[in-house]
């Protein structure tokens, strides 16, 4: 299970980094989104992977060792909200840049051929 999750995070992060380095603003925003998915998974994994851990065990209520670590889940929720908001903001700037400069290149002008 660790290997699958690690591979998934790696694939997402790798694609994200590659896309961020591309010259078109749309590629950059997709890259940032993929990268933030990778990071969110990473935060969850940092709370240790456990299969079949109950939300609330019927008999062992009150024993914290029985539960999945709730803190990374709280962190990841915050991170999702924040990265969603900032990505939306970036989308607006991207459109403004497209409108003002007439190109979707990240430098605001087409490179010399």
């Amino acid at each position, binding site marked *: 299970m660790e290997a699958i999750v690690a591979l998934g995070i790696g694939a997402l992060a790798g694609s994200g980094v590659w896309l*961020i380095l591309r010259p078109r603003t749309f590629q*950059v925003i997709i890259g*940032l989104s993929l990268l933030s998915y990778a990071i969110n998974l990473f935060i969850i994994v940092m709370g240790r992977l456990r299969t079949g851990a109950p939300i609330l065990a019927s008999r062992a209520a009150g024993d914290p060792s029985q539960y999945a670590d709730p*803190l*990374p889940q709280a962190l990841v929720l915050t991170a999702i909200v924040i990265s969603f908001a*900032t990505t939306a903001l970036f989308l607006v700037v991207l459109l*403004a*840049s497209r409108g*003002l*400069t007439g190109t979707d290149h990240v430098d605001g002008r087409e490179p010399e051929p």
Partner: protein
Amino acid sequence: MSGIADHLVIAPIVLPLVAGAVMLLFGERGRTAKAAINVGSTLGLVAIAVALLTSTAASSDGAAATYRLGDWPVPFAIVLVADRLSALMLLLTSLLAAAAVVFSLARWHRAGAHFHSLFQFLLMGLNGAFLTGDLFNLFVFFELMLAASYGLALHGSGPVRVRAGLHYIVVNLAASLLFLVGVSLIYGVSGTLNMADLAARIPGIAPQSRGLLEAGAAVLATAFLLKAGMWPLCFWLPTTYAAASPPVAAVFAIMTKVGAYIVLRLWLLLFGEAAGASAHFGGDVLLLGGLATVAFGAIGTLASQDLPRLAAHSVLVSSGTVLAAMGMGETGVTAGALFYMVSSTLALGALFLLVELVERGREPGADVLAVTREAYGDDDLEDEEEVGLAIPATMGMLGLAFIGCALVIAGLPPLSGFVAKFALLTAALNPAGSAGVSTASWALLAILIVSGLAAVVAMTRAGMRSFWASPDRAVPRVRLIEMGPVAILLILCALQTIQAGPVMRYMHATAQSLHTPQSYVRDVLQAEPGAEARRAGPT
């Protein structure tokens, strides 16, 4: 302390939050009311910061005032901690912000939507980042600050700002993701996010986990150093700062210092003497990176074609000096660096404001302003009547202020830049032990002197071009509320010079408590549950 005084620690966060939210209700109307709220709130922050500063300075052992949100016991609570360094940074931020907001009232606050609200939210994020004692809470305040700064960087609009803003946002979004990686790695290893608790746990980390912890800290530091503009993470900075509107750029001068502040706090807290095998982890990177940043910034100032870029590269020099001095890891040098940080930030803020006044003779932003005036309506026609002081005196005042900024930034006597560099280098050349002067100290000495020379050359050239060499230029029309803030920032630098003794003592006490973080850890972890901090929940 009792009653309302206990809640003073959270006031620098709550006040701008409330002020910013209230101003949102006005929409595009009520500009005068919004301006009044903004100025009132910012001046309120100055008062709060002064109160916090005097209360921390008064306690002889520099005890950190700890505020537990929701009154949870400490390792679980999100804590706000106001110690000497936090109080100092709060005061610096609020002074700079007060100058910028008064300056903006002349005309810049009309150049775009929601300037006043965004400004208050930026202050909230900054103050929160300075006060928080929790890593994840720090992330939240950082994002608040950045989200507001994205809006402010685009304030005034125009292709140049949008292009610079695009880069700024991408770079900072990527850095925020690195921040999260760092925080979660540290949490995964240590199981805590409370800075004080973390400092207490680090010596006991198992050797096989230590690599992971250090990797986490390094990733985290990358995010902060990017904010601080350390070479080679600084290429976004000059363009963004030069493109931002002047009052915004003046406040942004403190944003690089947020990065430096957090590196200083966390590095000395987590990797101080007590950290066992991890002690002084990464100190060399800070030192070398800082020196490289100073060199890059100095070359940048020499190469700058216009005043805004010159000011932006001076930000790099200032930030690099602070980072390099921190990397020395000596109490005296840190104290000098703090003194330098205060004086250079004030002077840079003044310079960013001044640059616009000087450049106004050429009116590069005139078309932008004309467009926004059309878009938002110019209902303040009565302003036009009071425009302009007597004409020849204007250039004289501007020139005098420019010389003041140049003196502080280059570190020449008689202003505070000289005192700061002198204190810094004296401490670096007289190390505490009998080890003799290290190579690092000599390198710091050489590069600081050379960067000072570069600053003198660049500022002289720019000053001559602006004030002497263009006979046919129009004399800029400058209003008193634009010149006032610049003058006040420079007067603060002068006061810092006159009161150098007491200020330096405060910096020494601050550096002392930073280098012996045990008292900070004890103050935070042993904060008594029950007595205070009952009301406010997490924001």
